[in-house]
């Protein structure tokens, strides 16, 4: 058993932390919440120069060929600094499925662009039926010559409005088992017939409604095989869940640190409020939540990177960390008192993002049911 990061990982962590503190201050985070695009092309370019988009992509596509754990460490720092923008969706929801299931032509076409920072991508999976499982896919794709025609509505698609390409999960065949008959397409986001609307959300994370009306996509842009797209989605979801958990752990760590600083400074009744027992108990509980979450996140991420993670492991991680991020940020606001409710204070930024992270890729009830099933209940 060795729970230390490697030297290279420590370096990556420190470098990312320092870079993001400098380049992604909370003033920028707030600006980007109000900004239509929701990201800073300048910051995006700097991250591309650091090779972050291609961190885990093979060198032949311009990547750094580092491991999934390295991406997890990077995402943890991004979560700590609540980095806005399409890094998560491009790298995790865009490049990883193409890497694992793309043809050589597709990989050659898309991955170098992603690595260079020249392409923004996302995945359109969820729909108004608000299901997390494969039955959520109702948007249809019908074969027509060398193309497919897509009709339907996707919801909660992150950054679709700025994407260059969207991986769309469509239903190409009705089957008794909803996991069968799903096909993925890499769709040009500027295709005629696609309409975008950014939905206002608590997390200000640019989730979009994307309506497909007779959208044409070439057969050559099918990702994976016809009707057999769900396993690719499932694998991506596993990677995305742990990636989101990494972000969340970074975010809750930052919230705890912010709170500890505050309660040491804030004086009432002639003493720092950090001397009051209730506050000390809250902080101990928050730290417990942070320490256990970090531990579980690393363990399950490691298992996933080693090909050993079971569905129950990943569900357990998401269920726990959902609860932890919400708990820590809620307690953090409480410890800050009224100032924590002000939009001028940073803690609210985390509180809102904790809720956003809670529901994406499955809320705790959904994941606990998976744990129950995996236990054989």
């Amino acid at each position: 058993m060795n729970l230390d990061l490697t030297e290279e990982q420590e370096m990556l962590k420190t470098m990312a932390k320092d870079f993001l503190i400098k380049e992604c201050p909370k003033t920028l985070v707030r600006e980007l919440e109000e900004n239509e695009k929701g990201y800073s092309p300048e910051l995006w370019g700097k991250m591309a120069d650091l090779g972050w988009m291609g961190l885990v992509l093979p060198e032949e596509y311009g990547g750094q060929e580092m491991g999934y754990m390295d991406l997890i460490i990077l995402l943890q720092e991004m979560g700590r600094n609540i980095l806005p923008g399409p890094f998560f969706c491009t790298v995790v929801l865009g490049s990883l499925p193409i890497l694992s299931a793309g043809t050589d032509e597709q990989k050659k076409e898309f991955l170098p662009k992603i690595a260079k920072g020249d392409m923004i991508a996302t995945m359109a999976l969820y729909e108004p039926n608000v299901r997390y499982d494969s039955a959520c896919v109702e948007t249809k794709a019908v074969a027509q010559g060398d193309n497919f025609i897509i009709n339907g509505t996707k919801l909660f698609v992150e950054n679709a409005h700025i994407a260059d390409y969207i991986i769309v999960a469509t239903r190409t065949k009705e089957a008794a088992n909803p996991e069968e008959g799903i096909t993925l397409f890499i769709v040009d986001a500027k295709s005629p017939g696609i309409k975008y609307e950014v939905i206002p959300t608590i997390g200000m994370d640019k989730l979009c409604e994307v309506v497909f009306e007779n959208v044409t996509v070439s057969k050559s842009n099918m990702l994976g095989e016809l009707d057999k797209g769900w396993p690719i989605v499932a694998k991506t979801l596993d990677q995305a869940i742990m990636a989101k958990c990494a972000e969340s752990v970074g975010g809750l760590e930052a919230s705890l640190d912010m709170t500890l600083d505050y309660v040491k400074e804030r004086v009432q009744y002639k003493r720092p409020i950090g001397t009051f027992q209730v506050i000390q108990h809250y902080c101990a509980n928050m730290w417990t939540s942070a320490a256990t979450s970090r531990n579980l996140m690393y363990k399950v991420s490691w298992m996933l990177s080693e090909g050993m993670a079971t569905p129950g492991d990943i569900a357990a991680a998401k269920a726990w960390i959902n609860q932890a991020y919400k708990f820590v940020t809620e307690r953090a606001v409480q410890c800050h008192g009224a100032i924590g409710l002000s939009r001028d204070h940073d803690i609210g930024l985390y509180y809102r993002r904790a809720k956003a992270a809670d529901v994406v890729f499955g809320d705790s009830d959904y994941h606990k049911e998976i744990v129950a099933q995996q236990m054989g209940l």
Partner: protein
Amino acid sequence: MDFGFTPEEEAFRQEIRDFLRKELGPEHKGRTPYELFSRDFTRKLAEKGWLGVGWPKEYGGLGRPYTQQLVYSEEMMRSRAPAGAHILAQNMVGPSLIRVGTEEQKKEFLTKILKGEVVFCLGYTEPNAGSDLASCQTTALLDGDEYVINGQKMFTSFAGQADYAWMTVRTDPDAPKKHRGISMFIVDMKTPGITVSELDTMWDYYNYEVFFDNVRVPKSAVVGELNQGWHYLTVALDHERVFMGGCVAQHQRLFEEIVQYARETHRNGKPLSEDPVIRQRLAQLAIDLEIGRLFAYRVAWLLGKGTIPFAEASMTKIFTSELERRLANTAMQILGLYGPLDRGDRAPYDGYIGWEYKFSLMQAVGGGSNEIERILIAIAGLGLPRP
């Protein structure tokens, strides 16, 4: 990063399991409190050399690393093996004597402990010294060549069975800071003047009051140096912390039993395991257990690196004890009306879950109440200021 177990750890675990299966037998359910203490079983462990599993080899121990000590503890706890006759000597007394004991004390006790021949009880808590342990009022005052002990210890587990007490006494009543006037003594429980009286706890446990009325002990009763008792108390905790981490394995076993019960028991025409509320509760407990177990290994790993994980160890204690209460509550809910049945033919699992429901109150209170532990985390771990 690597969260896997080594082949040595896996082999050790299997070796312990095989031994326990053979020694405890398939009938041992560990479900009554009277199965917690067994000198016979302790001796069998001694024959394997396992009482000193974590002790340095030069003192007769096996010198196994902390992670293997946790493996050992997990398997003992999982099988509900009787530990009362050796657990304190193994985890507290032995390691403390190795660190700070006099040569005579090491010679006198270490071998006996390793052979399972001597039982210790822990004399810390008093009627007026619980969380505030430093307010120890049991005095030991020098009179010629002997110390005279007067006072009372309370909630002393296994005092009625013990050969010796490992206890805090006040040897310097005038110390300006009260914890600086405390010494650690080893006292023969057969010494005249000691009266042991059983306490009636909710869980029928081996719990006692011990009265000291002019009890005369030789100078050799002083462990290490005089008035260093508080220091010894605080540093003696590493083995104990590792062993405590093994408690999660015990709870895991109970959890598996109630999952089985939920699968097999029908209510309103359906297995309990199909009830969505029960599914959610059991799933949450499954996750909590994994969290607890994972963290126990983290503490063991940190100790192995030579760090002293105050905050992590306190947190493990809090987490495990509160998990135990949640587990006991959910188990009782699943049993429904059968839950409160104490013993007898109708009581599921011989009333073990009802007993556990009562016993689960203990860990959040004993060994440092969870409130104190949280303050320790805040002040010692997170650097929050003292009031």
